[in-house]
């Protein structure tokens, strides 16, 4: 699908470059999977090692986490709608839906920051035990990825305004959408293996 | 040509055999075992060496023949000796895949059985209860606690011969590896964890032991001596120690834990009364007391002490 989009590009080499960008980004995502897998493994190994700090079951709040999950899943959907608009060639729809996507992402981040601050006040900081170190670094790495994603989308919004939909800008937007969906998948794993299990155990 | 080389090849086969005989007879610590654990490890080594020399001979001979015979500037090369497009032969490729698999299998089986045997006290002393010794590493010294006898030694230990020793390995701080080459292979001692290592000496004597895992500036000097002696002599030593050695106080122990090199010491009580570094509760005992002691280097120029090369010798 993306290739049709790119085949409309003005020059042959641009198409080829665009294809390579996408292949390269998929491989980058594979590396990201290895990165998050390592963080998940670390988290699993350190699970329960809370020392003197509160246990996750005491702190995790199902409400907030559900809202966060809802926000991020919806943002993945709106991101998909944005790409659909791009395929149709409507720049305005694309921009609108991308803005909705990052607003949802910002809301997600807001809750995550609130959550972190709240836990810290309850005595579970990154320094208090190895379990909490693993928690903050795993969830925090995801949060940093979301932040970077938001910044990236903003940059692309400006470029879309400046240049409209070209082979290059559409290629960039498609790649950022892959990234955004990937973050959603990672969050699903965090939601299940960190929050759900943390609340049950 | 072939006839000439044949006897020569036979002689070549004797070289590695001689080498193995030389290795098994020579005084290298690991190949000069003084107990059943080291003995079983040595037997496995020698067993594997036969395979290794077999592989080396095959490859070296094949390599030598190829390079000698197919070099470009060899006089009177024949044209049929050059086949630039020869690129495969299924049969021979299968053969040289299967043979290594057989060798790996032949090596795996005794490896696995030995591994499981090493987890238990040696068979030869199955009739006696193993002697329990807690070996605790602390930068850069060894504490040996005998809970049943209620004594503790630093940087040396006495063990009875013909009886399994059950070492409980742990560390007060950095990870160390407890190793007495002539009695058997090593295992790590780690803070907050306990490893069990069974060793046994059959021959009375003095054996060198050391920490084999690098753990900082004093690492080289983190050695100890093992006195293996018959049970009666060991009992006498225990009794003398119980009667004559001073008690170990917690204050003294805490100051001994500070990163440093110390002499051999003997006490008539053990530190296990207040801390066992092999448990989760004891894992940070030392580090919370001596966290700031690592800022200073010891400036160790050469290790003063018996055995090491130093200016005085």
């Amino acid at each position, binding site marked *: 699908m993306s290739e049709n989009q790119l085949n409309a590009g003005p020059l042959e080499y641009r198409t080829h470059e665009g294809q390579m960008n996408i292949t390269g980004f998929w491989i980058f995502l594979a590396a990201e999977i290895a990165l998050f897998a390592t963080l998940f493994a670390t988290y699993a190994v350190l699970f329960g090692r809370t020392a003197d700090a509160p246990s996750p079951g005491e702190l995790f709040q199902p409400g907030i986490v559900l809202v966060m999950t809802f926000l991020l899943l919806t943002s993945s959907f709106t991101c998909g709608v944005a790409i659909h608009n791009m395929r149709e060639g409507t720049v305005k729809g694309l921009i609108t839906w991308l803005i909705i996507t990052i607003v949802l992402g910002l809301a997600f981040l807001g809750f995550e920051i609130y959550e972190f601050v709240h836990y810290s006040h309850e005595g579970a900081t990154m320094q208090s035990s190895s379990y909490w170190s693993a928690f903050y670094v795993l969830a925090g790495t995801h949060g940093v990825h979301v932040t970077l994603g938001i910044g990236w989308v903003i940059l692309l919004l400006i470029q879309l305004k400046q240049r409209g939909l070209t082979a290059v800008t559409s290629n960039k937007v498609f790649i950022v959408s892959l990234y955004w969906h990937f973050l959603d998948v990672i969050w699903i794993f965090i939601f299940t293996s960190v929050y759900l299990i943390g609340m049950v155990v | 040509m072939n006839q000439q080389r044949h006897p020569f090849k036979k002689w070549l086969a004797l070289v590695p055999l001689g080498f193995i005989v030389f290795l098994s007879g020579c005084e290298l610590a690991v190949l000069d075992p003084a107990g059943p654990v080291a003995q079983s*490890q040595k037997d496995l080594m020698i067993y594997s060496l036969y395979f290794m020399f077999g592989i080396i001979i095959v490859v070296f001979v094949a390599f030598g023949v190829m390079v000698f015979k197919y070099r470009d500037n060899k006089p009177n090369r024949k044209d049929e000796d050059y086949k630039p497009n020869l690129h495969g032969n299924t049969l021979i490729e299968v053969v040289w895949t299967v043979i290594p698999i057989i060798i790996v299998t032949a090596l*795996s089986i005794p490896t696995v059985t030995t591994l499981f045997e090493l987890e238990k006290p040696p068979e030869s002393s199955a009739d006696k209860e193993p002697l329990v010794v807690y070996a605790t590493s602390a930068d850069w010294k060894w504490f040996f606690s005998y809970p049943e006898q209620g004594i503790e030694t630093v940087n040396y230990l006495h063990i009875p011969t013909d009886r399994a020793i059950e070492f409980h390995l742990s560390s007060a701080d950095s990870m160390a590896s407890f190793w007495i080459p002539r009695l058997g292979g090593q295992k790590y001692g780690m803070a907050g964890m306990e490893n069990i290592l069974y060793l046994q000496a059959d021959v009375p004597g003095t054996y060198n032991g050391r920490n084999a895992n690098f753990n900082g500036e004093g690492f080289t000097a983190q050695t100890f001596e093992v006195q293996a002696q018959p049970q009666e002599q060991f009992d006498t030593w225990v009794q003398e120690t119980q009667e004559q050695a001073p008690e170990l106080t917690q204050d003294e122990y805490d100051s001994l834990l500070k990163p440093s090199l110390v002499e051999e010491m003997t006490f008539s009580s053990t530190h296990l009364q207040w801390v066992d570094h092999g448990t989760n509760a004891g894992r940070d005992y030392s580090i919370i007391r001596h966290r700031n002691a690592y800022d200073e280097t010891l400036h160790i120029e050469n290790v003063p002490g018996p055995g090491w090369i130093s200016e005085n010798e």
Partner: protein
Amino acid sequence: MQLDEFFVTGEPLIYGGMVAIALVTSAILFILTYFKKWGWLWREWLTTVDHKKIGIMYILSALAMLFRGGADALMMRTQLAFPNMQFLNAQHYDEIFTTHGTVMIIFMAMPFLIGLMNIIVPLQIGARDFAFPFVNALSFWSFFFGAMLFNISFVIGGAPDAGWTSYTPLAGAAMSPGPGQNFYLMGLQLSGIGTLATGINLMVTILKMRAPGMTLFKMPIFTWSTFITSFIIVFAFPILTVALALMTIDRIFGSQFFTLTGEGMPMMWANLFWMWGHPEVYIVILPAFGIFSEVIATFARKRLFGYNAMVWSIILIAGLSFLVWVHHFFTMGAGAFVNSVFSITTMLIAVPTGVKIFNWLATLYKSRIVLTVPMLWSLAFIPSFVIGGVTGVMLGMAATDYQYHNTYFLVSHFHYVLIPGTVFACFAGLVYWYPKMFGHKLNERIGKWSFWLFLIGFHVCFFPQYFLGLDGMARRIFTITPEWFTLNFISTMGAFMMGLAFAIFVYCIYYSYRYSEREISGDAWGYGRTLEWATPTPIPAYNFATVPQVNTHDAFLEMKEKGKTTFDEENLEPIHMPNNTGKPFIMMGILFFASFFLVFEWITLAVIGLIGGLVMMIIRSFDYDDGHHIEVDEIKRTERAARGL
């Protein structure tokens, strides 16, 4: 912070190092200024995105690092042969073996091979550059600045001293205070970014940019090994990234991953480190196998035996490399069952490796071996590596490993695989492809001197160490007992022979630069089989004027038989090339300072640096530089001049 805390003081050797650095730096600055070369340096090198030039910069940096790592090695050997001289104290010795290991693996072996890949892989597959030339430049500068950051540690702040494996808790903030360990963490992290990017870049290049007709199973074997190596990089380097990040957070921000307090788990570092570290040793050995395959086939003047088996064994080795990490710490007490499993997986690696050895031998069968210097390095690899390989199997047998672990037996084993494997391959590859890079061969006579001296020195140095290990000599001790003196002395003699051989090699480069005949043919050795030899020398910026159609494994051999070249005048088209850019250099320069500040835990400055890096990324995002075209006329001029038409 006081100035005397900032600079390392009190060590005469380090003062010597400072003086040497100051002198060399001022000499370089003077020469650049005097000959007005600053513009040239910036235009031709610092801003280049040409894979060939980047490759050359990789190799030059790697040679410099080989010198540094080698100097470390000679200092250690001097101390161990003559402990009475009090040449090094314990602390200094610890620092030196730490930097020796780190520099040799991360900043010598890998960049050297990546440099060769940079130059050769696009040429072998008929491509005009990497898939992402900008990223390629970024990768190089990330490695370069990472290496610089690591290397300044011995004069500024203090070198790391916890071993190249940096096991926790020893390497943690409590037991290794000060910036030394931070240099290790940040230096590796910075260069790791580049390695990961290179892995992705090479994968896309190989997947998407091959010449028409070159299917995956018609690729030259060096390209195959590069491709599989890139896979390993992509899946192994993120583990290192995480491990380094966690230890950095531990040390600087007080988290409890690998600490003894807060229920941290120091052994997890060893696991994470080797989950990256074992694949890492295959990252440096598989490309070496590829180089040997190319060189042996070329100078045996015969097609590589068992091409498919070669490829599949590389793939198998790569897969197994992720399943053996526990063999680095059988002695951790994981139990007989776990050790049995990892023992068997470890020994299984010997099977595909053995297949490769036999395939190389079979390639020699009924061949016409030409004993050039690269061929000598490759041939010497086979028997030497077999010794390293069989001792590797012995180490893999966990029950006996308890006796070999942490001894000179182990030290000897891994030098026996890494030197004949990686270092010989670096020399073989460099000498083999040297005429492609610089337009003239290296002198064969001097090259042979250097080769024989190095080979003999290597065996003299490391063979005795097997026996030292069996006699109970632990690795990383800084002084010895008298009974180990003889073997240590012999070993040190061997080390100095290798040092001398390296000096001769460097002299060979100089001598050949002055006196060697210039190449006019692209196929310098006359036996070239693969596409890199199809280009003229010097290689034009665009590599191939017309990209050839590939039908067989040895594409260039076929072209020679059919009388074809890569210059088909009728079918020339303008070639699109990327523009040079200074952004990679500047971006990594900024991140260098950010990392440096983080090493000293100056958080505000580090954050400013990090923001600078982000700003550079934003600037890059708005960069719509499309590159330029090389017109047909210019291609014709270049090719005719190069081919003497």
